[in-house]
Protein backbone atom coordinates (compact mmCIF):
# COMPACT_ATOMS: atom_id res chain seq x y z
CA UNK A 1 0.00 0.00 0.00
CA UNK A 2 1.32 3.45 -0.88
CA UNK A 3 1.99 5.72 2.04
CA UNK A 4 -0.35 8.41 0.72
CA UNK A 5 -3.33 6.09 0.24
CA UNK A 6 -6.20 6.51 2.67
CA UNK A 7 -7.74 3.17 1.67
CA UNK A 8 -7.51 0.22 4.04
CA UNK A 9 -6.24 -3.15 2.74
CA UNK A 10 -9.81 -4.48 3.06
CA UNK A 11 -11.22 -1.53 1.12
CA UNK A 12 -8.78 -2.24 -1.70
CA UNK A 13 -9.82 -5.85 -2.24
CA UNK A 14 -13.58 -5.41 -1.83
CA UNK A 15 -15.42 -5.93 -5.08
CA UNK A 16 -12.55 -7.91 -6.60
CA UNK A 17 -12.47 -11.57 -7.68
CA UNK A 18 -14.05 -13.21 -10.72
CA UNK A 19 -17.55 -12.71 -9.36
CA UNK A 20 -16.79 -9.26 -7.87
CA UNK A 21 -17.36 -10.80 -4.46
CA UNK A 22 -13.72 -11.23 -3.47
CA UNK A 23 -14.04 -10.84 0.30
CA UNK A 24 -17.79 -11.15 0.85
CA UNK A 25 -17.56 -14.66 2.33
CA UNK A 26 -14.71 -13.66 4.64
CA UNK A 27 -16.46 -10.43 5.63
CA UNK A 28 -19.88 -11.99 6.28
CA UNK A 29 -18.27 -14.71 8.42
CA UNK A 30 -16.65 -12.01 10.62
CA UNK A 31 -19.77 -9.86 10.67
CA UNK A 32 -22.01 -12.73 11.81
CA UNK A 33 -19.31 -13.79 14.32
CA UNK A 34 -19.28 -10.33 15.90
CA UNK A 35 -23.07 -10.28 16.03
CA UNK A 36 -23.19 -13.73 17.59
CA UNK A 37 -20.98 -12.78 20.58
CA UNK A 38 -23.59 -10.68 22.46
CA UNK A 39 -26.46 -12.87 21.20
CA UNK A 40 -24.91 -16.10 22.55
CA UNK A 41 -23.97 -14.48 25.88
CA UNK A 42 -27.48 -13.06 26.38
CA UNK A 43 -29.13 -16.34 25.36
CA UNK A 44 -27.01 -18.45 27.75
CA UNK A 45 -27.76 -16.14 30.70
CA UNK A 46 -31.47 -15.92 29.87
CA UNK A 47 -31.84 -19.70 29.33
CA UNK A 48 -29.91 -20.60 32.48
CA UNK A 49 -31.96 -18.28 34.69
CA UNK A 50 -35.21 -19.70 33.23
CA UNK A 51 -34.10 -23.32 33.68
CA UNK A 52 -36.21 -25.79 35.60
CA UNK A 53 -39.70 -24.72 34.50
CA UNK A 54 -42.42 -26.56 32.58
CA UNK A 55 -44.19 -25.95 29.25
CA UNK A 56 -46.13 -22.89 30.49
CA UNK A 57 -42.92 -21.27 31.79
CA UNK A 58 -41.06 -22.04 28.58
CA UNK A 59 -43.80 -20.51 26.39
CA UNK A 60 -43.92 -17.42 28.63
CA UNK A 61 -40.12 -17.18 28.39
CA UNK A 62 -40.18 -17.20 24.57
CA UNK A 63 -43.12 -14.75 24.49
CA UNK A 64 -41.01 -12.08 26.13
CA UNK A 65 -40.20 -9.63 23.30
CA UNK A 66 -36.48 -9.46 24.10
CA UNK A 67 -36.07 -13.23 24.39
CA UNK A 68 -38.00 -13.78 21.14
CA UNK A 69 -36.02 -11.10 19.27
CA UNK A 70 -32.66 -12.39 20.49
CA UNK A 71 -33.73 -15.94 19.60
CA UNK A 72 -34.69 -14.87 16.05
CA UNK A 73 -31.43 -12.95 15.54
CA UNK A 74 -29.40 -15.79 17.08
CA UNK A 75 -30.97 -18.39 14.79
CA UNK A 76 -30.65 -16.15 11.71
CA UNK A 77 -27.02 -15.15 12.30
CA UNK A 78 -26.17 -18.62 13.64
CA UNK A 79 -27.45 -20.54 10.61
CA UNK A 80 -25.82 -18.00 8.27
CA UNK A 81 -22.49 -18.35 10.10
CA UNK A 82 -22.81 -22.17 10.19
CA UNK A 83 -23.52 -22.29 6.45
CA UNK A 84 -20.42 -20.18 5.70
CA UNK A 85 -18.32 -22.42 7.95
CA UNK A 86 -19.70 -25.65 6.50
CA UNK A 87 -18.96 -24.31 3.00
CA UNK A 88 -15.28 -23.82 3.88
CA UNK A 89 -15.04 -27.32 5.40
CA UNK A 90 -16.63 -28.91 2.31
CA UNK A 91 -14.42 -26.91 -0.05
CA UNK A 92 -11.36 -28.05 1.92
CA UNK A 93 -12.12 -31.76 2.16
CA UNK A 94 -14.28 -32.74 -0.84
CA UNK A 95 -11.90 -32.75 -3.81
CA UNK A 96 -14.22 -34.34 -6.39
CA UNK A 97 -15.95 -31.41 -8.11
CA UNK A 98 -19.31 -33.13 -8.63
CA UNK A 99 -19.51 -34.34 -5.06
CA UNK A 100 -18.36 -30.96 -3.78
CA UNK A 101 -21.14 -29.12 -5.63
CA UNK A 102 -23.67 -31.69 -4.45
CA UNK A 103 -22.53 -31.36 -0.82
CA UNK A 104 -22.55 -27.53 -0.97
CA UNK A 105 -26.08 -27.42 -2.41
CA UNK A 106 -27.34 -30.05 0.05
CA UNK A 107 -25.87 -28.22 3.08
CA UNK A 108 -27.17 -24.83 1.95
CA UNK A 109 -30.67 -26.18 1.33
CA UNK A 110 -30.70 -28.04 4.67
CA UNK A 111 -29.50 -24.97 6.60
CA UNK A 112 -32.10 -22.78 4.89
CA UNK A 113 -34.82 -25.30 5.74
CA UNK A 114 -33.73 -25.55 9.39
CA UNK A 115 -33.54 -21.77 9.69
CA UNK A 116 -37.03 -21.35 8.21
CA UNK A 117 -38.49 -24.07 10.45
CA UNK A 118 -36.98 -22.67 13.65
CA UNK A 119 -37.76 -19.02 12.85
CA UNK A 120 -41.36 -19.91 12.04
CA UNK A 121 -41.66 -21.93 15.27
CA UNK A 122 -40.31 -19.07 17.39
CA UNK A 123 -42.76 -16.64 15.78
CA UNK A 124 -45.71 -19.00 16.19
CA UNK A 125 -44.97 -19.35 19.93
CA UNK A 126 -44.14 -15.67 20.45
CA UNK A 127 -47.23 -14.43 18.61
CA UNK A 128 -49.68 -17.02 19.99
Amino acid sequence: MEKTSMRSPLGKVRGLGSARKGVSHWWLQRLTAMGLIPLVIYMVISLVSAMGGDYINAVAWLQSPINATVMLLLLGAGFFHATLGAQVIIEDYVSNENRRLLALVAVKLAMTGLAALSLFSVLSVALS
Partner: protein
Amino acid sequence: MIGDTTSAIGLLATILTFSRIDLERRMRDKDKERIGEMIMAKQRPLSPHLMIYKPQLTTIMSIMHRMTGGALAMGSLLVVWWIVALASGAEYYAFVQTIIGHWMGQLVIFGFSVAVFYHLSNGIRHLLWDFGYNLSIEGVHRSGYVVLVMTLVLTALTWVSVWASVWTN
Protein backbone atom coordinates in the same frame (compact mmCIF):
# COMPACT_ATOMS: atom_id res chain seq x y z
CA MET B 1 -14.51 -30.22 -51.84
CA ILE B 2 -12.32 -27.80 -49.93
CA GLY B 3 -15.21 -27.32 -47.52
CA ASP B 4 -15.46 -31.09 -47.00
CA THR B 5 -11.74 -31.33 -46.32
CA THR B 6 -11.75 -28.52 -43.78
CA SER B 7 -14.76 -29.94 -41.92
CA ALA B 8 -13.11 -33.37 -41.93
CA ILE B 9 -9.96 -31.84 -40.51
CA GLY B 10 -12.10 -29.94 -37.99
CA LEU B 11 -13.86 -33.16 -36.95
CA LEU B 12 -10.55 -34.97 -36.64
CA ALA B 13 -9.14 -32.12 -34.55
CA THR B 14 -12.20 -32.23 -32.29
CA ILE B 15 -11.91 -35.99 -31.81
CA LEU B 16 -8.19 -35.66 -31.10
CA THR B 17 -8.80 -32.84 -28.59
CA PHE B 18 -11.46 -34.78 -26.71
CA SER B 19 -9.54 -38.02 -26.63
CA ARG B 20 -6.58 -36.02 -25.37
CA ILE B 21 -8.67 -34.48 -22.56
CA ASP B 22 -9.91 -37.96 -21.67
CA LEU B 23 -6.37 -39.31 -21.77
CA GLU B 24 -5.17 -36.49 -19.54
CA ARG B 25 -7.97 -37.11 -17.09
CA ARG B 26 -7.20 -40.81 -16.94
CA MET B 27 -3.53 -40.01 -16.44
CA ARG B 28 -4.42 -37.63 -13.63
CA ASP B 29 -6.46 -40.33 -11.90
CA LYS B 30 -3.60 -42.78 -12.35
CA ASP B 31 -1.15 -40.21 -10.97
CA LYS B 32 -3.37 -39.70 -7.96
CA GLU B 33 -3.43 -43.44 -7.32
CA ARG B 34 0.32 -43.71 -7.69
CA ILE B 35 0.97 -40.74 -5.40
CA GLY B 36 -1.41 -42.29 -2.88
CA GLU B 37 0.52 -45.56 -3.02
CA MET B 38 3.81 -43.70 -2.63
CA ILE B 39 2.50 -41.85 0.42
CA MET B 40 1.32 -45.14 1.92
CA ALA B 41 4.69 -46.76 1.21
CA LYS B 42 6.55 -43.62 2.37
CA GLN B 43 8.81 -43.86 -0.66
CA ARG B 44 9.63 -40.18 -0.77
CA PRO B 45 9.93 -37.36 1.74
CA LEU B 46 6.76 -35.33 2.07
CA SER B 47 6.08 -31.79 3.14
CA PRO B 48 4.95 -31.52 6.78
CA HIS B 49 2.18 -34.03 7.15
CA LEU B 50 -0.30 -34.73 9.94
CA MET B 51 1.29 -38.11 10.74
CA ILE B 52 4.77 -36.74 11.34
CA TYR B 53 3.81 -33.33 12.69
CA LYS B 54 4.35 -32.87 16.41
CA PRO B 55 1.08 -31.86 18.09
CA GLN B 56 1.24 -28.21 19.10
CA LEU B 57 -1.10 -25.88 20.96
CA THR B 58 -1.66 -23.85 17.77
CA THR B 59 -2.52 -26.77 15.48
CA ILE B 60 -4.64 -28.65 18.03
CA MET B 61 -6.61 -25.50 18.88
CA SER B 62 -7.14 -24.72 15.20
CA ILE B 63 -8.50 -28.22 14.56
CA MET B 64 -10.66 -27.95 17.69
CA HIS B 65 -12.15 -24.69 16.41
CA ARG B 66 -13.26 -26.42 13.23
CA MET B 67 -14.47 -29.50 15.10
CA THR B 68 -16.53 -27.50 17.60
CA GLY B 69 -17.92 -25.44 14.71
CA GLY B 70 -19.03 -28.64 12.98
CA ALA B 71 -20.42 -30.01 16.24
CA LEU B 72 -22.42 -26.81 16.80
CA ALA B 73 -23.85 -27.00 13.27
CA MET B 74 -24.94 -30.59 14.01
CA GLY B 75 -26.13 -29.60 17.49
CA SER B 76 -28.30 -26.87 15.98
CA LEU B 77 -30.62 -29.75 15.03
CA LEU B 78 -31.28 -30.26 18.76
CA VAL B 79 -31.97 -26.55 19.28
CA VAL B 80 -34.41 -26.60 16.34
CA TRP B 81 -36.02 -29.74 17.77
CA TRP B 82 -36.53 -28.04 21.16
CA ILE B 83 -38.09 -24.93 19.56
CA VAL B 84 -40.34 -27.01 17.31
CA ALA B 85 -41.40 -29.01 20.38
CA LEU B 86 -42.28 -25.77 22.14
CA ALA B 87 -44.38 -24.74 19.13
CA SER B 88 -46.02 -28.19 18.93
CA GLY B 89 -47.81 -28.11 22.29
CA ALA B 90 -47.59 -29.23 25.93
CA GLU B 91 -47.75 -32.98 25.31
CA TYR B 92 -44.86 -33.20 22.86
CA TYR B 93 -42.83 -30.69 24.86
CA ALA B 94 -43.19 -32.87 27.97
CA PHE B 95 -41.86 -35.84 25.97
CA VAL B 96 -38.83 -33.81 24.83
CA GLN B 97 -38.29 -32.63 28.42
CA THR B 98 -38.01 -36.22 29.67
CA ILE B 99 -35.30 -36.88 27.06
CA ILE B 100 -33.49 -33.64 27.97
CA GLY B 101 -33.74 -34.58 31.65
CA HIS B 102 -32.22 -38.04 31.13
CA TRP B 103 -28.51 -38.24 32.00
CA MET B 104 -27.64 -38.99 28.36
CA GLY B 105 -29.53 -35.89 27.24
CA GLN B 106 -27.75 -33.86 29.91
CA LEU B 107 -24.40 -35.22 28.70
CA VAL B 108 -25.15 -34.13 25.11
CA ILE B 109 -26.16 -30.65 26.31
CA PHE B 110 -23.02 -30.47 28.45
CA GLY B 111 -20.91 -31.31 25.37
CA PHE B 112 -22.85 -28.72 23.37
CA SER B 113 -22.13 -26.07 26.02
CA VAL B 114 -18.39 -26.86 25.98
CA ALA B 115 -18.42 -26.50 22.17
CA VAL B 116 -20.29 -23.18 22.47
CA PHE B 117 -17.83 -21.71 24.96
CA TYR B 118 -14.73 -22.96 23.16
CA HIS B 119 -15.92 -21.72 19.76
CA LEU B 120 -17.04 -18.40 21.30
CA SER B 121 -13.72 -17.82 23.12
CA ASN B 122 -11.53 -18.96 20.23
CA GLY B 123 -13.76 -17.01 17.82
CA ILE B 124 -12.98 -13.84 19.78
CA ARG B 125 -9.27 -14.83 19.54
CA HIS B 126 -9.71 -15.09 15.76
CA LEU B 127 -11.39 -11.67 15.58
CA LEU B 128 -8.56 -10.14 17.62
CA TRP B 129 -6.10 -11.62 15.09
CA ASP B 130 -8.15 -9.98 12.31
CA PHE B 131 -7.70 -6.65 14.10
CA GLY B 132 -3.95 -7.31 14.31
CA TYR B 133 -3.61 -8.33 17.97
CA ASN B 134 -1.72 -11.33 19.40
CA LEU B 135 0.01 -12.15 16.12
CA SER B 136 3.42 -12.91 17.67
CA ILE B 137 4.28 -16.48 18.71
CA GLU B 138 4.01 -15.46 22.37
CA GLY B 139 0.70 -13.72 21.66
CA VAL B 140 -0.69 -16.76 19.88
CA HIS B 141 0.31 -19.06 22.75
CA ARG B 142 -0.82 -16.69 25.50
CA SER B 143 -4.24 -16.11 23.91
CA GLY B 144 -4.49 -19.86 23.31
CA TYR B 145 -4.14 -20.60 27.02
CA VAL B 146 -6.59 -17.78 27.82
CA VAL B 147 -9.14 -19.46 25.51
CA LEU B 148 -8.69 -22.84 27.23
CA VAL B 149 -9.08 -21.29 30.70
CA MET B 150 -12.09 -19.23 29.53
CA THR B 151 -13.76 -22.38 28.17
CA LEU B 152 -13.35 -24.13 31.53
CA VAL B 153 -14.49 -21.11 33.56
CA LEU B 154 -17.55 -20.34 31.39
CA THR B 155 -18.61 -24.00 31.33
CA ALA B 156 -18.24 -24.35 35.11
CA LEU B 157 -20.00 -21.04 35.77
CA THR B 158 -22.91 -22.01 33.50
CA TRP B 159 -23.50 -25.43 35.05
CA VAL B 160 -23.24 -24.18 38.62
CA SER B 161 -25.82 -21.53 37.65
CA VAL B 162 -28.01 -24.20 36.03
CA TRP B 163 -28.08 -26.20 39.26
CA ALA B 164 -28.78 -23.07 41.29
CA SER B 165 -31.50 -22.03 38.84
CA VAL B 166 -33.24 -25.43 38.82
CA TRP B 167 -33.05 -25.40 42.65
CA THR B 168 -34.83 -22.02 42.93
CA ASN B 169 -37.28 -22.16 39.96
